[in-house]
Structure formats: structure tokens, C-alpha cells
């Protein structure tokens, strides 16, 4: 437990220091969402139905932005070699690093999303559903992304390859997440939200093992 806490504290500290890129995803999210009314036009009737999908797609892309450095930075300076030999299992290393990624990327998106939803004219009734769907769905984005980051850790400029690998895996989260917000607007239904929660739980349980296996191969 102590080792996991040490790793989490270090990853959060590195993300918040200069060059850590914690604010980058958030700024990207903000800009993408604010561009949409400029392109589509400000009419409420046109923006409101698009809002859940836009917010979710922007969240996916913002999440991808910092994923390529998740393991690569530690791989390049040899830290990953020593972590692989530490008493902490590599699966736990993956889980802690993905958690740190969510805390510095996903969580700020959840908190900023309601503010941006106003600019997209999302109906007020859907706000709690937006926050809930992002809070439940974004952890899965960090953990699924960890698999892609582990596979591409040894690839120079692997960020693009990572996006191509990971974005298709995000499709179920995107569908259920956006549907949960849209369903709230038009007579609420818990089903998409529950499916999203189940999906996230499955990914949280399975992804650390898949990513650790990929890292072990890349450390050879």
C-alpha cells in the first residue's frame, strides 16, 4: 500500500509540475467544445441535441492527448525497469498510473463539463446525468488507454498509433455515455447509465492485467 501511495503521489506531482501536461487535456476540451457553436451556429434547437455527443467525443480526444506519455516517460529514463523489479506488482503499477491519469485528466473534465454544457444549450434537466455519465465513464478511458500506452511504449512517436488502437475501444463507452445524457433529456432512463457503469467496472478489473502483460513484453 505504501509503495502504491508513493507512486500515485509522484505521478500527481509530475503531472502538475511544468511539462507534466495536466492542464493540456482540459484546455483542449475547452477549445473543442467552444468551437462547435462557432461552426454549427448558436441556435438552441440545433445545439441541444448535439450537446451530449459533442461533450463525450471531446472528452475522449482530450483524454488521448496525454496518454502516450503514461508509460513512455518512465520507460525512456529506466524507471520502468526498476519498477518492474519492485515489490509492487506491475499490474498495480499500471492501475496506480492509470488512476493518476484519470485524476489529472478525467476528473477536471467532469468538473468543467457542466460549464461548457451551458454554452451548448444542454437542457437543465440533463445536467446531473451529464456529470454522472462522465464521472462513471471517464475512468474507463484512462484504463483502456493504459493498454494502448503499454503496447506502444517502445514506439517512437507512438501517439498516433495509440489513438488508432484505442479510439475504437472507446466506442461502447461513448455510446452508453452519450445515450445516458440524451435519455435524461427525453424522459429519463437509468439503463444506459447502468450499462456504462458495468462496462467501466469490467475495464477497471481487466485492463491492468492486459497492460502489464504488454509492458512485460516491451521490457524484454
Amino acid at each position, binding site marked *: 500500500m*505504501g509503495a502504491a501511495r*508513493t*507512486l500515485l503521489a*509522484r505521478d500527481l506531482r509530475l503531472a502538475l509540475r511544468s511539462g507534466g501536461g495536466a492542464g493540456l487535456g482540459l484546455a483542449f476540451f475547452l477549445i473543442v467544445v467552444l468551437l462547435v457553436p462557432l461552426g454549427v451556429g448558436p441556435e438552441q434547437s440545433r445545439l441541444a441535441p448535439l450537446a451530449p455527443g459533442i461533450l463525450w467525443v471531446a472528452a475522449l480526444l482530450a483524454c488521448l492527448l496525454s496518454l502516450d506519455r503514461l508509460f513512455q516517460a518512465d520507460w525512456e*529514463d*529506466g524507471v520502468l525497469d*526498476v519498477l518492474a*523489479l519492485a*515489490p509492487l506488482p506491475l499490474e498495480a503499477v499500471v492501475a496506480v498510473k492509470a488512476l493518476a491519469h484519470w485524476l489529472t485528466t478525467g476528473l477536471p473534465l467532469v468538473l468543467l463539463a457542466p460549464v461548457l454544457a451551458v454554452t451548448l444549450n444542454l437542457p437543465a434537466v440533463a445536467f446531473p446525468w451529464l456529470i454522472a455519465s462522465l464521472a462513471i465513464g471517464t475512468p474507463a478511458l484512462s484504463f483502456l488507454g493504459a493498454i494502448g500506452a503499454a503496447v506502444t511504449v517502445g514506439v517512437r512517436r507512438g501517439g498516433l498509433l495509440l489513438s488508432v488502437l484505442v479510439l475504437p475501444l472507446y466506442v461502447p463507452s461513448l455510446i452508453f455515455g452519450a445515450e445516458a445524457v440524451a435519455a435524461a433529456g427525453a424522459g429519463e432512463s437509468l439503463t444506459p447509465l447502468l450499462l456504462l457503469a458495468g462496462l467501466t467496472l469490467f475495464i477497471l478489473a481487466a485492463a491492468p492485467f492486459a497492460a502489464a502483460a504488454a509492458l512485460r513484453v516491451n521490457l*524484454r
Partner: protein
Amino acid sequence: MTPEPDPRAESRLPPDTSPGLGVTDLACRRDGRLVFSGLSFHLAPGEARLLRGPNGVGKSSLLRVLAGLVPPAAGRVTLDGITPRDADAWAEQVAYAGHLDAVKPQLTVAENLRFWSGILGARDIAPALASLDLAAIADRTAASCSAGQKRRLGLARLLLAERRLWLLDEPTVALDAATVARFTRIVAAHLAGGGMALIATHVDLDLPAGPPLVMAPPARGDDVGADPFLAGNFA
């Protein structure tokens, strides 16, 4: 072409229960290329061996196999009856210092060491700072340290946790003469406490070491793997 090393050969070898590190008929394959094969040696408690050989002969690969990062293609490795397959028990016995220093440039010297002490099982970092003469630069970011200072910081990690076998890959690169002497004394103290060390190096270290372990490049033709595709035979 040499016969393919058989991964199942390990089970046919008699169990090695003698104290210390036993390496029997070890082979390593990386990217389909046989790096070395048929390597056998023994390291008794309190003993150090220097690992010698030209560049690219597989010194680093051997250290990574012994660390448990790379699975061997054939042969067996035991340390007091433990094998690298038992990853948790193995990790408690070995410390690996590769040619990368495992130092985060954004963190200070003390923060780097405190991170490793937290990961490897808490121990006060003050003795490690003092042993490698890092106390004066403890609050500097590692990015502003020289290559030699970063190397000292990487080596200080060895002192944080008790590990019996030290696997050191070119530990003296970038170190000045005084620090090499200081580091030699640290390794000697580790050996005096019953520890073992395998050190890949091109310089002479003043250590109570056994005869150097010289690795020779494989004969021509040996370096092509058994996989016909990787050997370039696509037909």
C-alpha cells in the same frame, strides 16, 4: 547452424541448491537473435565478478536476464534455490542498475531518492545521500545535475533496500576517480556483508573479485535464430 536451445532442458538439469548465484547453460535470445548461449558460472556469497567482453557481446542482456526482466531462452538461474520465475521472491533478492539511471529530471535529488525508498520499502534516505556525497545537492532538480551526479543518484538507490545480488551495468561511467574509489568501497562493504555483485565494466575496479567473466562473441553463423522467417528465409 547450432542446435536450437531447448527451453524444456531446465527441468532435466539437477537442482542447484548450493548457496549463491548459480547459472547453468544459460542462453538468451532477443529479437530472434541468439545473443549468447551455453553460459555457466557460479557466484558464492561475498563474491564479485567483473563482466568483460567487447561491445554487443551480451553483457547487458545477461544482466537483464539475471534481473528477471528477460526470460532466458534456455538454461537455469538460481539464487539460494530461488529462480527468476518466482518473480516476487526474486525481486527481493536482486538490485539492478542499468545503463539508464532511473532518475526523474523534474524531481529534486532528495525527491527521487524518497520515491525509491517508498517503492522499495521505506528506509531513511540520509545514509544513501551521505554515502554517495549527494547531501549538498539534495534540493537541486535532477535536470540541473551533471551526468556524474545523476549516476551517483542512480547508484544511491542500491543502498535504500537490502538486496543480496547487485547487477551493475557500467556503473562507473561518468564518475570521477574519487567517486569510483568511493563506489568501490561501497561494493566492498556490500560483499563483506555476504552480498554478491556482477559488474559489467571496461575499467579495473579495486575489488576482491574472482577472475573476470569474459564473454566472447558467438562464432559466425551462430547468430541467426532458428526461426526461418527471422533468418531471412521467406520461402
